[in-house]
């Protein structure tokens, strides 16, 4: 058994604008089961962060408990990390984000961590529109405790040794839309062509960006009776359209395909191009997004791709008018503005 990845890399690995190769965004060797979808999501996160030329020390990855929440060890080894209490990742991110708005917050969670024990936390972080990327590695089961059904297991879906689930599934995308999330997407761990641009767009989005990634559990939930198996998802996924992410710094060249139907300029100046978007979906309209999700559920297909995006999103910092600078950069004079200022404040409250 290998305990570390060999140090040698492809000698011609492309370098990003910071001079880093993809290897600089990798983490330790995965200890998840061979073939776990989560590893592919890790690979997509590595690719997205490398291609966006984000400085690794400007990223904080946070997680709860579960297979998914182990995953941050396996990517972004040079970034900040916090492995928190089960289901409580959103609270920790909220605290961190309020203290330092300059970091990119990447929350990684699972279907148990989000849709069961962490449901309350998930609801409020979405409602507050905290500026973060929230990735759910959704395999419909509790892999770490031998594959019991989770709250996202579809009704009638059975894991390897289990009975068909008697309950309906929580659809995290539909839930997030109801709760006020401003960027909602679904993808599949086995489709990096879709997932990588979605992660990039989510990173650029200012506000709460949920990506619910169906990520098969090869050990407990990759059997023919499961609706979260590689085969089932491949056969039943229907994309809302394809998406390209165009970073601000890149001039639009032929590398980017023409013929997009929507162009969205993001808060940071980059833009996303959408192609061949589902005729029934207006991805900028919440009602349309919810309807489309429901239509696909009724048809037995899995809607993937960008589902909803609020172009005018105002995140928690905007709403609360928080400090523009990280708290650790504030000087004593700013934090303790003196007796006169206190008198003014007191006077204003009388």
């Amino acid at each position, binding site marked *: 058994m290998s305990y570390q*990845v*060999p140090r040698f890399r492809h000698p011609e690995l492309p370098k990003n604008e910071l001079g880093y190769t*993809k290897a600089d965004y990798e983490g330790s060797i995965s200890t998840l089961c061979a073939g776990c979808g989560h590893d592919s999501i890790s690979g997509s996160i590595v690719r997205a962060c490398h291609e966006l030329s984000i400085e690794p020390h400007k990223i904080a990855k946070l997680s709860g408990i579960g297979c998914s929440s182990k995953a941050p060890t396996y990517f972004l080894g040079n970034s900040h990390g916090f492995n928190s209490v089960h289901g409580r990742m959103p609270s920790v991110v909220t605290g961190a984000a309020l203290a330092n708005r300059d970091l990119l917050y990447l929350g990684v969670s699972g279907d148990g961590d989000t849709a069961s024990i962490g449901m309350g936390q998930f609801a409020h972080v979405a409602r507050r529109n905290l500026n973060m990327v929230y990735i759910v590695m959704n395999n419909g089961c509790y892999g770490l405790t031998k594959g019991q059904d989770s709250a996202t297991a579809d009704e009638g879906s059975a894991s390897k040794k289990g009975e068909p689930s008697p309950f309906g599934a929580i659809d995290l995308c539909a839930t997030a839309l109801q709760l006020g999330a401003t960027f909602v997407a679904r993808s599949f761990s086995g489709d990096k062509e879709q997932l990588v641009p979605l992660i990039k767009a989510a990173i650029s989005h200012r506000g709460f960006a949920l990506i619910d990634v169906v990520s*098969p559990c090869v050990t407990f939930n990759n059997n023919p009776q499961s609706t979260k198996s590689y085969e089932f998802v491949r056969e039943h996924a229907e994309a809302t359209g394809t998406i390209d992410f165009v970073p601000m710094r890149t001039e639009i060249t032929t590398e980017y395909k023409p013929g997009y139907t929507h162009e969205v300029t993001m808060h940071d100046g980059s833009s996303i191009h959408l192609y061949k978007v589902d005729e029934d979906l207006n991805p900028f309209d919440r009602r349309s997004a919810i309807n489309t999700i429901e239509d696909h559920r009724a048809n037995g297909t899995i809607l993937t791709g960008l589902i909803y995006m609020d172009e005018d999103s105002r995140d928690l910092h905007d709403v609360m008018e928080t400090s523009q600078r990280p708290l650790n950069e504030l000087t004593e004079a700013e934090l303790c503005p003196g007796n006169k200022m206190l008198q003014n404040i007191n006077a204003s409250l009388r």
Partner: protein
Amino acid sequence: MKATDIKNPEYFHKVVDCQHACPAHTPVPEYIRLIAAQRYTEAYMVNWRSNVFPGILGRTCDRPCEPACRRVRVEEEPVAICRLKRVAADNKEDIRDLLPEIPTVKNGKRIALIGAGPASLTVARDLAPLGYIIDIFDNQFAGGGMMRSQIPSFRLPVEVLDEEVNYILERGVNATFDVEVDSLKSILDQDYDAVFVGTGAPRGKGLNLPGLEDASASVHLGIDWLSSVAFEHTHSIGKRVLVLGGGNTAMDCCRTSKRLGGEDVRVVVRSPFEDMKASPWEKEDAMHEGIPIYNNHVPKEFVVEDGKLLGMRFQKVEAQYDEEGNRSLVPTDEDLVFMEADEVLMAIGQENSFPWIERDLGIEFDKWDMPVVNEITFQSTNERVFFGGDAAFGPENVITAVAHGHQAAVSIDLFCKGEDVNKRLAPEVNLTSQKMGVHEWSYDNAIETDKRYVVPLAPLEASLADRKMEVELGFDVATGYKEAERCLNCDVQTVFYEDRCIECDACVDICPTDCITFTHNGDEDELRTRLTAPARELSQDLYVSADLPTQRVMVKDENVCLHCGLCAERCPTTAWDMQKFLYNVAQAGQ
């Protein structure tokens, strides 16, 4: 692209770069693993079977394997393959019981071998165990050919040479030494069933420059002078020595001169330093011994006064390259350079010479007066006469001569059995899974990042004082182990079973060198532009699977695969497996 046919042994053979580059196709990673396991005798025998002279080659081989080593492409320096071979030779136990038996009852076929160099000795070794009666004729006092006459003892101790030559000569071979074969007809007239000519490229080239006639007493041909030293006819040389030429013979000449009394020994070469024919390490060794190399100097004339050589004049030149990379040496406008010299050694090349082969024996000679020899069978236009080594196609090296010898032996055996010599034998191939458990391999798949280890040398002063003292000390066992661990085990192949693949991407994600891509198929040129990492090394193949359920294919660029086995470890369905590919060139009688 068409799906790769891994049943064709040549596909995986090519992945083992070192073995593929070796003229004799020695299974390099196989013996390196045995060295790491301290199984030196077995490592030696893997070599001996393939290259016949592991101890000799472990010191003197031209090492075509090393520039081919994958380590060059992923790190910088190749595994010290050649010096590891010596570790096996230095540490082996008595191997005589392991050598093939020589039948006492012969098969009745008589073979004459002219010359007792590496090519002939290889033919003898391959044919003697099959019951052939082998008669060797050589003009030196002992076997070994140029390995004895031209490789100085400080690079190849005579004990090592004798040991490996004698494994052959002492086992059912009739050798006649100190005999000059001056007529091939006289040999053919003795009714041999086949004759093998392995007489090398024995004639040194000279430079006919002004003043040569008067200076001739002080001017020698490099290879002749080296053999005269080796055979103890020459014991000294003048204090100031000029060695002309930039090949390995020049390096041997200058280093030998330094040991025979030369104080101001210089190598003077026409070409730029980088273009010199000598192996880089041989140039380094010469410079390490305080011998300067003057490049871009074209010899013009010998300067002689009162019948005594004073020195030589050289024209300084500049190398210029045209658009096609052709070099021309253009004289600079500087004056001729004069260098003092008591003696001059000319080591500018050597050539074949067959004055002893009558031209009416049915052996066709080409316009360069070289015999016409089939490049695969080594048969000449006289079906009874075979050529090999430098005698076949001009000067090469020991390992090439060995490779020729093996193939000529195959041909001679087929010919003597009345079979078609053009029907070559298929290689002996074995592909075995290395899987021992869920994540366990029977080879050491961890990748070491150690840099190449340097072979220790004897103290300079002591080695310059004794021409027979071996300069290189060889790796000790501990360093040999560490160097062996640098080997990437390129013979442990990544074998892909598309019917098991669920396209989970685990292999793509884990591969440290981004070798693997799942994508739709296309032409090779176009496909190479769509892979996970650049695939610009066109000499390295793409391994392409048949169509997968998603209508994509698996494409693996073999170029910088570390053979670390992680793709197979991370594969949930054993669609990848690590399988050891052992490839041995078939030898006579198999």
